């Protein structure tokens, strides 16, 4: 579901957030219009608005865990939003990482890439059964990594309340098995910088 259809219709912050995202054509491969959120991070107001919108939505949902994917192909972008949201709502932050990055005992979950598979790992003991969790990412495309994250958390007994992304297409919801997906803005399709 888009933020604009969920209580934030006409909210000027959404426009500012969308405009702050730079589109880089043909990265990492030809044909992809890459949504570069680093320019959002340079715009203090837009960055703060992004975090504020998520915090306003989640602060009263009894969420004790914010988990973020740090395993989306080339990226470590889930790190960038998750900790700030966690701090503001008083939740723990749990990074979900590529294999062999987390030093302690882990559980892992495989997920499908366009070509091949990869794995997502989480520390054992990071969350307890019954905790209510939010999964945050900067971008959802196919929803593959998000669904792997949901499975990881559910295997440890957490209840995943929602998945949230800054940029995404509603198609990302298809692989989430009914788990709600909250998206701030759609991808931009034309170069704007």
């Amino acid at each position, binding site marked *: 579901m888009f933020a604009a259809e969920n209580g934030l219709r006409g909210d000027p912050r959404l426009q500012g957030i969308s405009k702050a995202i*730079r589109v*880089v054509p043909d*990265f*990492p491969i030809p044909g992809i219009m*890459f949504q*570069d959120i*680093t320019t959002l*991070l*340079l*715009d*203090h107001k837009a*960055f*703060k608005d992004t*975090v504020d919108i998520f915090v306003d939505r989640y602060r009263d949902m009894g969420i004790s865990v914010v988990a973020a994917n*740090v395993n989306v192909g*080339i*990226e*470590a972008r889930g*790190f*960038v*939003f998750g*900790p*700030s949201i*966690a*701090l503001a709502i*008083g*939740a*723990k*932050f*749990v*990074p979900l990482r590529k294999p*062999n990055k*987390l*030093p*302690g*005992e882990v559980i892992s979950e495989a997920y499908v890439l366009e070509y091949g598979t990869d794995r997502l790992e989480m*520390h*054992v*003991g*990071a969350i307890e059964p019954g905790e209510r969790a939010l999964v945050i990412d900067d971008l959802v495309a196919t929803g593959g990594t998000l669904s792997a994250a949901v499975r990881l958390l559910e295997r440890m007994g957490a209840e995943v309340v929602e998945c949230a992304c800054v940029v995404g297409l509603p198609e990302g919801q298809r692989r989430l098995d009914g788990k709600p997906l909250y998206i701030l803005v759609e991808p931009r399709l034309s170069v704007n910088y």
Partner: protein
Amino acid sequence: MQPGFSILCFQASADLPFLVFYQRKGVMHAAASLLNSSNLSLRFASQTQTRLSPWIAAPSSVRLPLNRSQNYRIALPPLHSTVSGDSTQPQQMASADVKAQDPRIAGISSAIRVIPDFPKPGIMFQDITTLLLDTKAFRDTIDLFVERYKDKNISVVAGIEARGFIFGPPIALAIGAKFVPMRKPKKLPGEVISEEYSLEYGKDVMEMHVGAVQAGERALIVDDLVATGGTLSAAIRLLERVGVHVVECACVIELPELKGRERLGEKPLFVLVS
């Protein structure tokens, strides 16, 4: 107890619990590295083969769960936050107005898990993921940095991939600065400038987006840990090449034995735990 595993136990003072060092395969490891604190007077207490405290790190064949009674930094005598780079100050002490140990530091230190032999034998890995599970300690960590930097006119917080991305953005948001990620090659999609730096074996490259910062801006560089200072030095060079003034480097943890502070030379380094 495994063969070849002997423990020396030091009592730092009458009212403090034991510091524990253990020796494995002929190499001394410290369960808590507190030797650089000038307030400790160490007395050799005993040498024994038995397990004396729950803080002894287990042998590397066991990967422990997140159990707070094991493998945590001992939050004992207050660990002074330290600043260097100012030639008018004694080497290890912070400036006069932060001489008293901030009471939040102990909780931060004890929330950091130490994992022996990761990623390879002989390395005591400082795992900050457990700090992120302690909401108070994580908030205190950010607060300590924000308090220090909020009135220093810093417009750029540069965070080093990947764990610098955990601490940098909250600090940037709180002090009204931009956040600029400093990344490994080929991850940033736009035009970049690069800086090569040395590793223990070989070299690596750090990149930053062109146009992310402007000449004359004042910057803070953030990472979770400083060891040899190699990545921090590369980040300093990258920013200075485009005319940015790096005010200070800030890390949660310092490994003083790896002399990162010296490698940074005159550039100030602020850490919470060392």
